[in-house]
């Protein structure tokens, strides 16, 4: 391994990336837009968990003369949505747009739920509990203490991870195939550069860009959302670094051969979309079948996000996430070795 040659390729690739204004800009704008978009949707606050539909003659809901208990009307995690008619409310309930539909003037406290909605079941229990309260039955209040995690704090590592995944797979895999197709790699083959040196340089260049992007996006987003990090920033950076390396090395395996951008694009989509959905970027796989959770473990993104969320949301230390770190290092070494063994400069 000649580090001088590797450094030459590393700096050349960095220059190339930073001067390609479109690609450079998009790497920052894409994650930032997603984070801001989700921030706007959820207001940077706790997610309004339950949507309660009522029908009313006015847009503003009027509880005057209603039979809905006051405690339910003032429920902290309830959002009331008005509809012009009962039929419209039922249609929304059927399509799971709301969790519960209430007739607020019914002396029998008439309500509707969708029996396929777990959210609806919980909303129903809250409503029934409020009725018991109205009947002056004293409730025995039970409080479970825990760290309150905002949805945006849970989601943010996922969005960063998703952006890293696309940047690593496409920025390495697709680009290397392009270089092979247009003859850039052929020119390098005529030099003493080895596949391992070239691939390592590509991987390090991309991880440098990914880490730079993460820092910029983090700082920018933090100004708006004030993320809560319960663990150390150093540990968080390390898990992102190791995760980025493993994702880049995976991209190198996909790009080790072939000159068809269309085929490579198909393969990258085939890998990246399941990885995005199964690595808990957007939602937890808790409760999903065991075989799905087993498949998810194949992906480096799963381990990176598990580690990152443990550090960020639960205050885990490096020792607590050493398992995830080791898996990411192992994936990197295995993929890089395979890529260097099967790498072709030209077809």
């Amino acid at each position, binding site marked *: 391994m000649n580090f*001088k*040659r590797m*450094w*030459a*390729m590393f*700096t*050349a*690739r960095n*220059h*190339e990336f930073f*001067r*390609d204004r479109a690609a450079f800009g998009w790497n920052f704008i894409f994650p930032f837009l997603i984070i801001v978009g989700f921030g706007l949707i959820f207001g940077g606050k706790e997610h309004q968990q339950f949507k309660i539909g009522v029908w009313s003659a006015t847009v503003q809901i009027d509880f005057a003369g209603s039979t809905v208990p006051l405690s339910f009307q003032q429920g902290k995690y309830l959002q009331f949505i008005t509809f012009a008619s009962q039929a419209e409310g039922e249609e929304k309930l059927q399509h799971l747009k709301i969790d519960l539909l209430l007739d607020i003037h019914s002396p029998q406290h008439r309500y509707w739920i969708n029996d396929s909605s777990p959210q609806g079941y919980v909303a129903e229990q809250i409503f029934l509990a409020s009725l018991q309260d109205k009947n002056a039955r004293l409730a025995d209040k039970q409080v479970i203490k825990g760290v309150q995690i905002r949805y945006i704090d849970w989601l943010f590592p996922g969005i960063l991870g998703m952006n890293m995944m696309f940047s690593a797979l496409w920025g390495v895999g697709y680009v290397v195939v392009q*270089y092979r197709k*247009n*003859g*850039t790699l*052929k*020119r390098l*083959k*005529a*030099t*003493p*550069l080895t596949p391992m040196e070239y691939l390592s340089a590509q991987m390090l260049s991309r991880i440098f860009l990914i880490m730079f992007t993460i820092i910029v996006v983090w700082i920018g987003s933090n100004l708006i959302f004030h993320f809560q990090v319960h663990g150390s920033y150093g540990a968080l950076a390390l898990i992102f670094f190791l995760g980025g390396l493993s994702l880049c090395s995976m991209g190198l395996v996909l790009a080790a051969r072939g000159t068809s951008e269309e085929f490579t694009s198909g393969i990258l989509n085939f890998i990246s979309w399941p990885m995005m959905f199964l690595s808990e970027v957007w939602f937890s796989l808790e409760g999903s079948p065991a075989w799905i959770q087993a498949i998810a473990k194949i992906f480096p993104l799963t381990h990176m996000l598990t580690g990152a969320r443990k550090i960020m949301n639960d205050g885990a230390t490096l020792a607590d996430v050493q398992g995830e770190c080791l898996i990411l290092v192992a994936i990197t070494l295995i993929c890089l070795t395979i890529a260097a063994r099967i790498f072709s*400069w*030209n077809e």
Partner: protein
Amino acid sequence: MNQIVEVINLRKVFGENTAVRDASFTVTEGICFGLLGPNGAGKTTTMEIVEDIIAATSGEILYQGQPRGASFREEIGIQFQHTSLLNFLSVEETLISFHKLYQQPEDLEYLIQLCDLHPILKQRNNQLSGGQLQRLMLALALINRPRLVFLDEPSTGLDPQSRRNLWDIVRTIKAEGKTIIMTTHSMEEAEYLCDEVAIMDMGSIIAWDTPARLIQTHCQGSSILLPESAFKMSLDALPFSWKRRDKTIVLKTAQVQEGLTKLLSLDIDLTEMTVHSPNLEDVFLYLTGKKLRD
């Protein structure tokens, strides 16, 4: 003189297509060796096998009498016919990048002077003209002080001025003692630059010698060309072997002066006469029955 490259029974098959058929030749150190032939003759494939860019189906390549070893890439320079560089790097940055890939690189300032790169040093690779890109590619091929330089169709797509400049550079590096192996389909280029020429057609080497000896061996004599209207007599009575090409009569003669004397004695109008001396194109035409650019 030492043989720097020996190619022995080289064969390359792509599927059902045999691109190179048992090609054998040797290259003497310090000369400019040309592989001449039309497009699709197998020149580039042969060259890329010798460069160790693609693998041969069978055959052997020796470099300085030995199979090519780990140091081969440190000692050769290649200018490919079709290749690319990183678009957003400047010429200067590209030179520096490649400079760092070798153990004993050439002095950059010398290369910049030699290939006239000063005016374009800050330009990005994707902003270069064809001629400027060729000059940069040539500089990259020379960046490691190579003993052996491969040039694949180096003047393709260049205007006459750029081509002439390129030829001057090639002659300069040859004068420094470097061995050059080049492919071309330009007989003018081959005659101007090459000490030895191997003519390829359909994957085979059909002739190999110095340009002068190839011409002497295969195309003796010259041609005198005259419009048909210049003849007031029956063409069958001419003391020459001749043939008609459109409205032009082509007369073959061993000695131009002797031929002209005969024509004057027959009182033929020589106002529109042209004389054609044989060249490598004629050699190729003689050997294959077709023109180089077919």
